[in-house]
């Protein structure tokens, strides 16, 4: 087990290397001069050149890459070009909002998606099933930006039950925080809930068709126990996979959602970083996100072993 963990962690190295190279090169392709954003549009050419030298932008690309990677390896993500803050600090500031958003979305997925999926599977081919799967498709098919706009319109502007924007750290004001996170979390969570619902329904139906379910029925077990213990547990393995895959997708959702709700999270950090050409911030933030996603994959594999005794590492 420990050996497995070590091996899996070791494997992250080549993947992360690929990620760093791709990320770095891709960002250097961005047109536009970062010094414009920093110095303002009326700065002189000389000032801008000096700043470029300051930022190390006049050295060859490979050097810049090595400098960055070297820094990353020693735990230094560099400083923001725009605000000169340490990137690591910025990321630490921004993580809570995104993590919270993701956690609430996952919580919704588990608390709503799984029971709804079970209900749909058990009531297969009834109106309940149609309604639930229909809602699932609807949620899956609604772009986040659209949903967010509608939610703001209805709940913040018409009904005024929640504030339309703003962020308060949970640690400072839990109630205020939650009230403001409701709409973003619903937005982000909608897809995850739908995906989990559909997967739960599908794999539960598949599990219910397995031979061992027939065996359980032949021993006279109650339907309830058969569904919740015998079938659901087997069905959960693919649900876990799919949910884990959603972590990556969640990050995409937060990009849009944070932008609309103006939440200070990783999504806005990355997008604004790209738009303002604050490359050290983007590099650091994406690297953190990617590492996180990869670690989630690893944890997922460990969860399999917990769910499925056939898997040992």
């Amino acid at each position: 087990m420990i050996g497995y963990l070590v091996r899996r962690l070791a494997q992250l190295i080549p993947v992360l290397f690929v990620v760093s190279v791709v990320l770095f090169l891709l960002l250097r392709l961005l047109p536009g001069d970062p010094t414009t954003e920093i110095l303002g549009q009326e700065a002189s050419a000389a000032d801008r050149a000096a700043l470029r030298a300051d930022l190390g932008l006049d050295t060859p690309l490979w050097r810049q890459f090595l400098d960055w990677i070297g820094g990353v390896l020693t735990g230094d993500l560099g400083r923001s070009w725009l605000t000169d803050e340490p990137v690591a600090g910025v990321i630490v500031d921004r993580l809570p909002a995104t993590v919270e958003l993701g956690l609430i979305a996952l919580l919704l997925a588990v608390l709503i998606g799984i029971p709804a999926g079970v209900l749909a599977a058990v009531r297969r081919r009834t109106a309940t099933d149609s309604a639930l799967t229909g809602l699932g498709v609807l949620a899956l098919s609604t772009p986040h930006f659209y949903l967010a706009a509608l939610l703001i319109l209805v709940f913040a502007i018409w009904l005024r039950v929640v504030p339309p924007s703003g962020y308060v750290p949970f640690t400072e004001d839990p109630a205020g925080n939650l009230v403001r996170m409701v709409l973003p979390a619903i937005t982000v969570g909608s897809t995850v809930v739908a995906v989990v619902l559909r997967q739960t329904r599908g794999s539960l139906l598949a599990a219910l068709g397995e031979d061992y379910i027939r065996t359980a029925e032949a021993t006279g077990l109650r339907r309830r126990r058969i569904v919740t213990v015998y079938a659901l547990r087997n069905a959960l393995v693919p649900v876990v996979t799919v949910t884990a895959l959603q972590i990556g997708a969640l990050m995409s959702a937060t990009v849009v959602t944070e932008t609309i709700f103006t939440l200070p999270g990783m999504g806005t950090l990355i997008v604004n970083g790209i738009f303002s050409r604050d490359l050290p911030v983007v590099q650091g933030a994406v690297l953190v996100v990617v590492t996180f996603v990869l670690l989630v994959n690893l944890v997922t594999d460990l969860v399999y072993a917990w769910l499925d005794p056939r898997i040992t590492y």
Partner: protein
Amino acid sequence: MPLLSVEHLTVTFNPDSRPVPAVTGVDLHVDAGETLAVVGESGSGKTVTALSVLGLTPRPPACRTTGTIRLGDTDLTSLDARGWRSVRGRRVAMVFQDPSTALNPLLTLGTQIADAIRAHEPVGRAAARERALAALELARLPQPGTRLEQYPHQLSGGMRQRAAIALALAAGPQLLIADEPTTALDVAVQAEILDMLDTLRRDLGMGLILITHDLGTVATHADRVAVMYAGRVVETGPTGQVLGDPRMPYTRALLAATPRLDAPARQRLVAIGGHPPDLAVAAPGCAFAPRCPVALDVCRDERPALRPHAPDQLAACHHPEAPLPGPVAAEHDPTSAGEPTGEPVAEFDEVVLHYPVRRGLLRRVVDRVRAVDGVSLRLWPGRTLALVGESGSGKTSLTRTLLRLERPTGGTVSYSGIDVTRPDREQLRRLQREVQVVFQNPYASLDPRMTVAQILAEPLRVHRLDASRTELVRLLEQVGLDAAALDRHPAAFSGGQRQRIAIARALGPRPRLIVCDEAVSALDVSIQAQVLNLLADLQREHDLSYLFITHDLAVVRSVAHDIAVMRHGRIVEHGPAERIYGSPTHEYTRLLLEMAPGHPTQAPSGRTAAWSR
């Protein structure tokens, strides 16, 4: 009063759209302490009959079940869901066909068995575990205490089947239905399980319905037998009587098609032509008529009813006395018996094959499986070498080295003097042409997206041989199919026909050696006989050599010139077939022969006198 009586049971799938009458008008009864065997080819309705006794056929509208099923004085057909629950497990229990899928992989045996008990009795956890332990002991699972905490995947196939039986026995049923409880298992394990079921039935006074397609098993373990064909019972009666003096031509044909250990070596089997009818296509008359060698016009027009012929023996036939034509016994090819001659076609010399066991994503080798561990063997022209041995003994692995699908870890494999691991261009072409293969699974060995013509033409094109339609038709005719097959896809053929197509494909490049890896194991006996006969004919015609892998010793008897017994990656005994059967020297070989179902030495007295002669 019988323990179970089934009357006019009819089960129809999709009754509203495209009805498939899987079971039609079946009557059965079982007494306490009695074993009823239900036999029949695949798809004849055995499992569906069993499921309806447990009320486990799909719910309407997917399926309609009519008729009456009485258990003691309970009319099962009138039960509601709650009523069924109290019957299942408690009064009737079932052991399903495939032990590898019948147990929940994510729950321990203890949990599953205790659940089965607690479903019927208000006992506490601890008590349920005690009872579960007792059930495991009853099923003679070694070390039952530790098993409670184990998961199914931690058990071998045989142990899994015992666990499944323990699960079925846990709540003390009056009637046990065992659906092909041993098909998936090795001969040795098969025998143990069947013996155990026998004892349990006797000791617990249960009724036992034993579903099987193996007449050998029937002979040695059943009191009475019901033969099913196309969803109907076509003959039923005491085992000795039905097997000894079958009245229905189907039963007789089945017997003639079954390879027997006690028959002369390399005896030609009598195959049943054609294949079972499609249930979805309603036809009047006897369902067996199209395949029946003695069918009359009346057979095609009018369905025969089950009529008594001897005391307790009923058969559904218009003329049960008609003699079956043809010599029952004929040597395949008497001349080729005896010692091999000439140069060997292929030779394994101290072949070793180790599979690395890789773990994790880095796929590092953590261990090795010694699948083949120093095997030396020779294949002779025009002869069949049968390779037998329990599952996992390395049979397939050995052939993979010859087929260039694996590189041997050590030793050499040569074909006609060519080192198979290092052929030059020319030699490689020869290998590709002259060594062919027929795999076990007729469904997986043909590309389902290609037409038969494409399948047959492919090897020919590769080797720039004549791939004209006439040539393809010729190949098909060799295996008893006609030109009509060319433009169809494998899905349009039965298992036996697919296996013929696979053989035709193998014959295309005019090979000298064909590897048959369990080539007939997946087939029903009737079809199996067709294929075995075909292989023998082709061998004689083309002077082919076969490397024939099987675990069925009766089959071996009908095809092999030479036998090699493999165990744990090694050959423990090999030589001409006659010698091995006559005087096996190795312990393991003797064990295999003894355990094989239908062996006369096993027959309990009074049951199967007719069969053992």
